[in-house]
């Protein structure tokens, strides 16, 4: 372990990562495994072909427990997100977006209806912010309870169901975005059928004290390899999924980010619970008229990856940039460079040829539909 990770928080699986030969790096205040001896490329391909185990314990798990009834909590949470919370059935999870008064995104998250409470999973880097935000706005209707004694593991890939069902047979019956709580040998597990790779898979919250034992049981399956944050990033990029702080932030709206699918009809103009969330004026207007800029997929035509910050131009000679890449790298399953970025709406049509400036040279990139790699969810 290197000096730079000494001051960082440790996840419950820290010793197991070291034992597995992980390279640990600082990430959002935690020492996290960026890769194992297999390496980013093979880890990525293994996850797409079989199953990968990810430690995402740095993410925030927050229970919102209503003080009186769930309906009041759901309504209060709807006042923070352009997303339908009311009506989400028990045992189901949904993607959510906390917005600010300008319509920008404060964080993206998952929330699940677990009967008598909601469980949120938020980004590591936004955990402290989100908890303060939720406490400031929900304290009359709910207790905001960060879960600090649990690990969060993700088991992803086409063999994930078979592997998890070996330990938890009930997992087999779950569909994409179902959630379930279960008492097991490893203590109470909170399972969702979801992930951040574009593959079928599960995220499993497990008590910290039994997390290593549970992880070892999953790793004992011949289909499973441990996967680090490096491959997690290339997998989510190929799946066209946003990374907060990069592809979305307080200056991008859900419409600009192409996340309109996350805004249910009930919250839109003429919906049953129209508006009433921060930035509603901007977001609803953009839903009607479209946004001036759009997040798009980009395929560099050459072999050189174009990374975050690469400027985009409408021609090889143009004098002004039209946008920039917000995530980019090599896509191991695509077999070439892939990227996402923001461009003017009139240049966001798939097939549009743009230019990215790399080390002083402008190289062609083509706007393309997302995802780069087909998703494989169990609907």
């Amino acid at each position, binding site marked *: 372990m290197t000096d730079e990770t000494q001051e960082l928080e440790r996840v419950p699986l820290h010793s197991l990562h070291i034992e597995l030969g992980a390279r640990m790096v600082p990430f959002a205040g935690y020492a996290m495994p*960026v*890769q194992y001896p297999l*390496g*980013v*490329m*093979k880890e*990525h391909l293994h996850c797409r072909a079989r199953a990968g185990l990810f430690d995402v314990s740095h993410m925030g798990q927050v229970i919102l427990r209503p003080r009186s009834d769930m309906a009041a909590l759901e309504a209060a949470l709807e006042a923070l997100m352009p997303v339908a919370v009311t009506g989400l059935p028990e045992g189901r999870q949904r993607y959510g977006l906390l917005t600010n008064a300008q319509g920008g995104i404060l964080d993206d998250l998952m929330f699940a209806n677990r009967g008598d409470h909601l469980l949120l999973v938020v980004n590591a880097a936004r955990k402290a912010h989100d908890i303060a935000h939720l406490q400031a706005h929900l304290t009359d209707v709910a207790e905001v309870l960060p879960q600090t004694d649990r690990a969060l593991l993700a088991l992803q890939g086409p063999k994930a169901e078979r592997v998890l069902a070996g330990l938890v047979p009930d997992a087999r019956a779950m569909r994409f975005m179902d959630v379930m709580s279960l008492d097991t040998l490893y203590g109470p597990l909170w399972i969702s059928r979801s992930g951040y790779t574009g593959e079928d898979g599960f995220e499993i919250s497990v008590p910290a004290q039994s997390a290593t034992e549970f992880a070892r049981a999953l790793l004992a399956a011949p289909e499973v390899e441990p996967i680090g944050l*490096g491959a997690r990033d*290339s997998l989510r990029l190929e799946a066209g999924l946003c990374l907060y702080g990069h592809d979305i932030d307080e200056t991008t709206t859900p419409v600009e980010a192409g996340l309109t699918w996350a805004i249910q009809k009930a919250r839109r103009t003429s919906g049953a619970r129209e508006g009433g969330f921060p930035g509603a004026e901007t977001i609803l207007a953009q839903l009607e008229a479209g946004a001036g800029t759009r997040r798009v997929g980009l395929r560099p035509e050459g*072999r*050189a*990856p174009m*990374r975050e910050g690469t400027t985009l131009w409408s021609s090889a000679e143009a004098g002004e940039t039209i946008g920039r890449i917000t995530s980019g*790298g*090599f896509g*191991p399953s695509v077999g070439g*460079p892939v990227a996402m970025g923001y461009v003017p709406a009139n240049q966001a049509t798939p097939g549009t040829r743009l230019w990215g400036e790399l*080390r002083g040279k402008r190289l062609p990139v083509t706007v393309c539909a997302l995802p780069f790699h087909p998703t494989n969810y169990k609907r």
Partner: protein
Amino acid sequence: MKYTEEHEWLRVEGDVVVVGVTDHAAEQLGDVVFVELPEIEAQVAKGDEVCVIESVKAASDILAPVDGEIVEVNEALVDNPALVNEDPQGDAWFFKMKLDDLSVLDDFMTEDEYKDFLG
């Protein structure tokens, strides 16, 4: 073989020096997916960025270790960047340089010194 603090190796072949990256550098880079090589006959100065290496994780440069002229480049790396990970101190050499004075190589680390440098 001589070694630089930038984790390059230098091997003398007649009056030219063959340059590549060390095993340690290749491991640190991770899976290499793209290599850009210098122009043949380019005159380069010590410290010039002469090659670009992109791994799955990040972009890095190879700096010219000394002043000289690029006389040959390893085109095999362009077609198969993974060679850098497979055989960094052998087949995956990057370029050959012609130097005016080979004695400048005396300043670089020996293998033992490089091992000490890595710690």
